[in-house]
Structure formats: C-alpha cells, structure tokens
C-alpha cells in the first residue's frame, strides 16, 4: 500500500509539473498550447545530447535543457500565437497552429534522432535504493518528486508575490484592465510561455530520466494525461492542476495494482468523467468569466 502510494506520488509529480505549465498558458490566453508535449520531448532530447554527447554532468545539463525549453516557448508564442492574436477565431486557430508547431517539432526530432528509443548513458544518475517505512524508492524517484514540488512551489510564489506574477494574473483575468494598468501585455504573455515551457521541459527531462526512454512521440503519452489533469483541476487553475496531477498518478498506480495495467487509462478517464458530472468546472475552476 505504502509502496503504491509512493509510486503514485512519483508519477503524479511529473503529471502535475507538465500540467501546471499547460494550464498557465491556458489561464493567460484561453488557448490550449498543443505543442506543450513537443517541448516536453525536445527538452528531454536536449538533456540527452548534453549528457551523452557533450559529456556534461546531469546537474548542469538539466538547467540548460530547461532554459532551451523556455526559449522554445518564446519561439512558439511568436510563431504560433502572436500573429493570430486579436482575431475573432484566435482560440481555434491558435489550437491548430500550436498543433502544427508541435508536429514540426516532432518531425525535426524524428529527423535528428530517428524513431527508436534513446537512452541516457549508464551511470547518468547514481543507482541507489532508499527504504522509507515499508516502501522503497530509488534516489532518482525521490529527487524527481522533490524537484517537481520545488518547481511548483516556486511558480506559486512567483504568481502570488512578484510583480511579474501579478501582471500574469492581471492579463489572465482581463487583458484590457492589464493594459490600462500599464502592463505590456505582449511581453507578459511571452514571459508566461517561457515559464510554462520551462516547466514542461523540466517535466520532460524528469520523465525521460524516470523511465530512461526518449522517442519523438514520448510527449504524446503525457499530452492526454496533462489535458485530463488540467480539466480535472479546473482550466487555468495552478493549484487545481497540482492536486489533479497527484490524484491521477495515484489513481493510475492503484488501478494497475488492483485490476491490471489494461484498465489504467479506462479508470482514470472514468474518474475524470464522474468528477466533471459533479463539478463541471473541475475541482478548482474559476466561476468568473474572463473579460475581453
């Protein structure tokens, strides 16, 4: 039981980290960034290149890969979202253009790395097992949980306490009110993309380390889970995404333990369905409509 809970928290921490970035952009722009999963994948490959080819230690490679992901986010915003801003159909056109950018990113990865699974070299992370009560976890798993929690806490602090955080929340609530307050809305949206993609990239590197497998389609498996998590948590809600991320991880692990792995996604999405029947806005969704 304790072992399953630990595994659930471990998987859930990666889902949550992926989803907070996803939901941050949704909260600010009201648009799903469907290239988020491709940034997740490219950051994992970037870390792999830095470790395997540039022979950097992981502690140096990971921040660089995360920075790379953040810059990809800015590129994505410039190419896929900003040109469409202000159009009446920007929600759906942004969805399509981000899907296109995600596909382009995947195609680039396929060209460079091929379709096969790539792995980190042996010894990238010390292989040590730690016992906690009756359960055991690898040092890597514990580090992944810790890094995810710290990054999510930093994001929460940034949004609650800093000037940029207030500006991001202002743009999320009403771009017009933000403009009236002298906020450079374009710059704040670019910053939100940088943060969102950095977190998505961090989730990608941690996911690749956790399962020691990276392929150009690795983001696909997390994409739908991430979407489920942000809907379950309430679209645009950061705490909602954190709670729902851990919840999904736990549900998955206990489903596999109880019914076998073939029921994993079925039960997860059934729970999503039931929660939405009871709470159509998700666990912590905002009731207030966003202003134009």
């Amino acid at each position: 039981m304790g072992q399953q809970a630990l595994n659930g928290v471990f998987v859930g921490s990666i889902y949550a980290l992926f989803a907070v970035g996803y939901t941050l952009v949704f909260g600010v722009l009201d648009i799903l960034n469907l290239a988020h999963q491709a940034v997740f994948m490219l950051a994992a490959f970037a870390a792999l290149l830095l470790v395997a080819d540039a022979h950097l230690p992981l502690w140096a490679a990971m921040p660089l890969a995360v920075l790379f992901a953040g810059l990809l986010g800015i590129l994505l915003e410039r190419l896929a979202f900003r040109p469409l801003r202000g159009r009446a159909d920007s929600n759906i056109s942004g969805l399509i253009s981000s899907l296109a950018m995600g596909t382009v990113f995947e195609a680039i990865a396929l060209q460079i790395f091929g379709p096969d699974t790539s792995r980190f070299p042996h010894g990238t992370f010390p292989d040590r097992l730690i016992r906690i009560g009756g359960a055991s976890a690898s040092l890597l798993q514990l580090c992944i949980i810790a890094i995810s929690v710290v990054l999510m806490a930093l994001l929460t602090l940034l949004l609650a306490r800093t000037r940029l955080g207030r500006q991001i929340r202002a743009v999320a609530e009403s771009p017009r009110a933000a403009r009236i307050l002298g906020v450079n809305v374009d710059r704040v949206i670019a910053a939100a993309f940088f943060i969102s993609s950095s977190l998505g990239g961090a989730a990608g590197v941690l996911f690749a380390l956790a399962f020691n497998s990276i392929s150009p389609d690795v983001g696909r498996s997390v994409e739908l889970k991430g979407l489920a998590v942000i809907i379950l948590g309430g679209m645009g809600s950061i705490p909602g995404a954190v709670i729902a991320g851990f919840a999904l991880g736990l549900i998955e692990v206990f489903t596999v333990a109880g019914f076998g792995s073939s029921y994993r996604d079925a039960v997860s999405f059934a729970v999503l369905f039931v929660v939405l029947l009871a709470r159509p806005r998700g666990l912590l969704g905002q009731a207030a409509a966003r202003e134009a």
Partner: protein
Amino acid sequence: MTALLEVRDLRVRYGHVEAVRGLSFSVGAGEMVALIGPNGAGKSSTLNAIAGLVRPASGSVKLQGRELVGAPAHATMAAGIVLVPEGRAILGRMSVEENLVMGAEARPWPAGREEAQAAVEQQFARFPSLQRRRHALAGALSGGEQQMLAIARGLLARPVILLLDEPSMGLAPQLVQQIFQMIADIHRAGTTILLVEQNARMALKTAQNAFVLERGEIALHGPAPQLAADPRVQAAYLGGDVEAR
C-alpha cells in the same frame, strides 16, 4: 497657461464609422477640463485614443510636448497618462491591496519600493472603507467602493494627467456627490484632470473648462460656468433649468 496635453485633429475610426472627427483641444497644467455630450458623441473614444487603448486614424496627441499618438497603452502610461476607464476595470479576482499595488507598480517611484508601499498606505488612510476590506477580493466590493478603488489605483500611478471616464456611472445620487467631491479634492491637490461625464451638471460644476462633443466634433467650448449658463447646453444636457436642481 501652457498646454500639458495637446490634442490636434484627432480622428478615430471603427471600420467605416468615424467616432471622432478631427478633434482639437488642450488641457493646461493643473487644469480640470470636462468633455460632455450625448451617448456616442465620441467622448470615450477620445480618452481611449489618448490613453493608447485605441489607435487613432490620424492626428496628434502630445503630453508635455512629446508626441504619443499611436503609442501602446504601456507607453502612454509610462509617460504619465493614467486612465480610470468606464466600467472601472477592477481586477476582481485580486485583493483590494493587490489592485492598489498594481497601480503603484505601473510607474517607477523615485525612492523605490518603500515609497510605493508608503503611497499605498496613504491611499488606505484616505479611503477607510478600502482599508477595512484590504484583503477582500476586489470583485466583492460595491460599485461605489470599486470606483474609489479605481481612482485610488489611478492616483498611485502618479499621473501627469488623470483621465476619468464616466466616474459617476451606475452610482446612487449620494455616491455621485461623494465621488465628485473626491475628484474636486484631487484636482485641488494639484492633479491635472480630463473628465468625461454623462452627468453634465456635476461635470460643469466641478471642471474649470469644458467641451461639448456632438457626433465626434466639438460643438461648444468655454469656461464651465459659462457653458452651464448657455441656453443650448441647458436645453440639451441640463434638463432646461440648471438652478432648480
């Protein structure tokens, strides 16, 4: 009086509709000027164009001699044009205090963060009803409190000129009096104000000079008391008898 804000031949178009048609006027330093007129006369469009929320089709907007026409809102704000818009644009999901802090963060303070924080506290001292609800969500405030919050937030941006768009809209008569008293106090303390109002009576009572806008053009202008006595203004905007009310 030297012109602080100078608007020349301003034109604003929405598609084929010309909302503002070659408007020219100026506001002197320390002055309070009112723009009055019927619905759709182009009053709010004029303020929005000055504040950079709407891009004018042509014309010139100069603040302290500096051309700002077509500049985005964050640039006009940086120059010191502060708009308290129609509908107030309160951030309802943020606390009252956070709304004020955002006002204080809109333009840099000479002595930095402490000075900004002290200014926020000053506004709380000035508006005890906001002080009492400092940690409440701004969306939960009453209409009058939200208007006070919007004005306090605008003042925290240290306006070179304060643009007030329909500050009395949707408020009970008693509150309207209170808000106009507040505006008069702010002006007396040295702030230059450009006021747009449907409530022509109160606007002409409070401002020094006024412009009457009709269909995007200036129909009349002059010192506010003189306009208030003008039979055309009385008939159209003051219900015929200015003294009786």
